[in-house]
């Protein structure tokens, strides 16, 4: 510590001015008008980015914030994400408050009015989704619940069709000159989705849109069993992911988090319990003992966990009961095989069927086909 003569601080204003000059430098050329450049799309998580890329193709410049091995509930709101959002035309989010801990701070810090909540570029992909498990009452005594219902709707691949429509509408709105291209992309995506879900043969016979509507209405089984072709019910033509999952339909399993409700509903499997006693609450020793009892009595044949949760509890359950544990991705990129939305479900269906003893891996490659 020193004692000196008074010396006024000089050039404080100069320092301020230098920051201003730095900011004003033409680091980047002026933003061209839409139509002359690609549409900048930022997806909160890779599933939405994958669907957007099927629709927009080369017309969009895609950036994804989260990665497939991350828990979408707990992505950190890094300031660097604000930079990714600064020039975005569209922001695709899961919605239903899944990203409540990180999308608001990075959008509000991005200085981009186009992608703020309520602005035309803020695309909530849950629009139009039939949301499951909307809580009748809200209390955190029930754990880290989602007030608007279960946000993991993309575990049902058929909801990808609704999301594709939402994204296509958004792209058409921001880039009307390429509307036909986006519509073609959407149709191609939906066609491929139907074939991957129901099998190409059944789609050729009955039409993908018809099958999708029956599935969405919960009447697909009645339709397949009540319609005969050449004396055989249509169910005999069911292929794709649904066809593969027929062999394990109704089998009980346990998941780590309550994130497979939509998957279970679509494919007819039964989720009988969760490793988490309540959403977001790690399992206690008592809860694990209860699960061991249930598993030992054969109440569930499989435990499904996620790449981003601890494995100690599930390893313990497997060790005590011999029940198989598999780690399944929930997002594109959650495993190296899940390179896009279709490969994600190829992988998931394969793993579930194999783990539940539903037969060998399908012949002839992925149900979703090639691209």
């Amino acid at each position, binding site marked *: 510590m020193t*004692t000196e003569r008074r010396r006024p601080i000089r050039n404080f204003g100069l320092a301020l001015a230098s920051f201003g000059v730095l900011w004003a430098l033409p680091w980047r050329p002026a933003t061209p008008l839409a139509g002359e450049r690609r549409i900048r799309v930022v997806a909160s998580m890779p599933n939405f980015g994958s669907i957007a890329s099927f629709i927009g193709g080369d017309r969009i410049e895609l950036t994804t914030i989260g990665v497939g091995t991350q828990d979408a509930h707990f992505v950190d709101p890094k300031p660097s994400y604000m930079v990714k959002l600064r020039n975005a035309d569209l922001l695709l989010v899961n919605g239903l408050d899944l990203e409540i801990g990180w999308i608001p701070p990075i959008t509000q810090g991005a200085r981009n009015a186009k992608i*703020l909540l309520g602005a035309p570029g803020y695309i909530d992909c849950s629009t139009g989704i039939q949301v499951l498990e909307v809580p009748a009452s809200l209390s955190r005594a029930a754990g880290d619940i989602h007030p608007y219902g279960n946000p993991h709707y993309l575990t049902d691949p058929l909801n990808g069709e609704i999301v594709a429509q939402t994204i296509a509408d958004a792209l058409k709105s921001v880039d009307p000159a390429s509307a036909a291209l986006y519509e073609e992309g959407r*149709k191609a995506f939906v066609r491929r989705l139907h074939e991957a879900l129901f099998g190409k043969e059944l789609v050729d016979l009955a039409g993908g849109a018809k099958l999708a509507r029956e599935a969405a209405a919960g009447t697909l089984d009645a339709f397949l069993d009540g319609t005969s072709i*050449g004396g055989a019910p249509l169910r005999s033509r069911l292929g794709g992911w649904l066809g593969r999952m027929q062999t394990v339909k109704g089998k009980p399993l346990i998941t780590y988090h309550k994130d497979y409700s939509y998957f279970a509903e679509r494919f007819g499997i039964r989720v009988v319990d969760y490793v988490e006693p309540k959403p977001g609450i790690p399992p206690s020793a008592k809860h694990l003992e209860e699960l061991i009892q249930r598993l030992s009595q054969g109440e569930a044949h499989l435990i499904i966990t996620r790449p981003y949760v601890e494995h100690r509890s599930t390893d313990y359950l497997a060790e005590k009961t011999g029940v198989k544990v598999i780690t399944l991705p929930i997002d594109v990129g959650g495993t190296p095989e899940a390179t896009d939305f279709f490969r994600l479900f190829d992988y998931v269906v394969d793993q579930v069927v194999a783990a539940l003893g539903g037969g060998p891996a399908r012949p002839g490659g992925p149900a979703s086909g090639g691209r």
Partner: protein
Amino acid sequence: MIMRPSVLPTAAFVALLMLSSSAAQEPEPSTTPPAPPAPASPAAAPAAAAAPPTHEEVDTLRREIDVLRRRIAELEARLSLLSSAASSPAGATPAAPTAAAPTPPEVPLRPAATAPPARSQSLLNPAISAILQLNGTTSLVHSSDANGFDLSEAEIALQSVVDPYAKFDMFLTFPSSGSPAVEEGTVTTLALPASLQLKGGRFKSAFGKWNTLHDHAFFTIERPDALVNFFGEESLTNDGLSLSVLIPNPWDQFINSITEVGTALPGTSFNADHSDLTWLEHLAWFFNTTPNSTLEAGLTATRGKAGISQALIAAIQRAGVFTGLPRDRFDSSVYGLDLTFKWKPLRLNVYRSFLWQTEVLHSRRDLEVLVQPALTLTPATVSSYGGYSYLEWQFAKRWRAGARYDLSELPDEEAAREWATAAVVRYQPTEFQEVRFEIKRSVRNAAAALRFNGEPDDTQLFFEWIPVIGAHGAHPY
């Protein structure tokens, strides 16, 4: 569309016609017959009209007719099912064309009657949260009035967007001693051009990292000594304006400049007359060193007016008799350097993390000193340093352990210096509750000890329990 059996043949015929003409209009669903035989090429049709058909052509046509007959049968079966389903309420589906209907089934799967679920923005009430801080403190060396439990603070936060152009954040604090106050209350623009963001109101100044934190978000229970010595028991807080600029750069990295002007709330370095303005400039650079780790570096400079120093007041009291008139407005500047490294693995970021945060502060403060034995006041400038370094390791989802080293001089007193080491254990049952324990060992030289009843050292234990209810906005990264 409901079709009665009497119209089935007509409908089937229409559908049959569409098989050959609707592919372009209706690519989804495909109408390709199952296992089709090799169809005649389009060029074969005029050729067939010009010459008698060969046996092969006849066989081909027969196979095609067989396929089409089967297709008609399928369509009839499906129409029959649809008719029965349409007449049954249980089997009714949304009024939409079916695959076999003559209109294209290009209708989105999205239920037409399903409105989007309610969203936060549709709720007019702001997000409201309440946070409680129950503190317990004791000294292992000295008996002190500070021993005991204390409801140190209760905070109520109200946060919402104002309109498409601004958001509003209000944090009301209810300290155990003193009146309720606005800890922070700001309106922040959301739609300014050129990457600008303007904030107005009362806010914690962007001096480094720790100063911007609310008490419940501290890493340790108490704030580092350097911040206390340089700014006071509360954060450096301004009533004024703050302009933030996200500086464009060729590397697309987060480089942010914050310029503040306002009136600082009374504190150590800036406690002069209310009409004096305090200026601050903060430049932050944040980048990802790896996908799992980040580094943030910041530089800060702030300048304002300080009042009479505590050191002079103490010296006058010790002198007993003094008839001079001390000045009460002096230039005061504080500069800061902050560095934060975080490691949070993307895949397991809620289970494991590491944090290293360091800040160095430098104060240059004009003041008057009392010269003995003449008891005259002489102007001087005290240049002093301070800082802390904090390490934290999260070893389980709910558990973190941290350690901090403090070194601080006093900005208004020559040769006064103190050191401290602290260790903290933090337990978070959920993200809405935290319990933490801290032990802190402080050592001071003689000049600094004068500020602490002459006590050259101390060892303190702290306890804190912080619950939060309601919708509390996410803290900055």
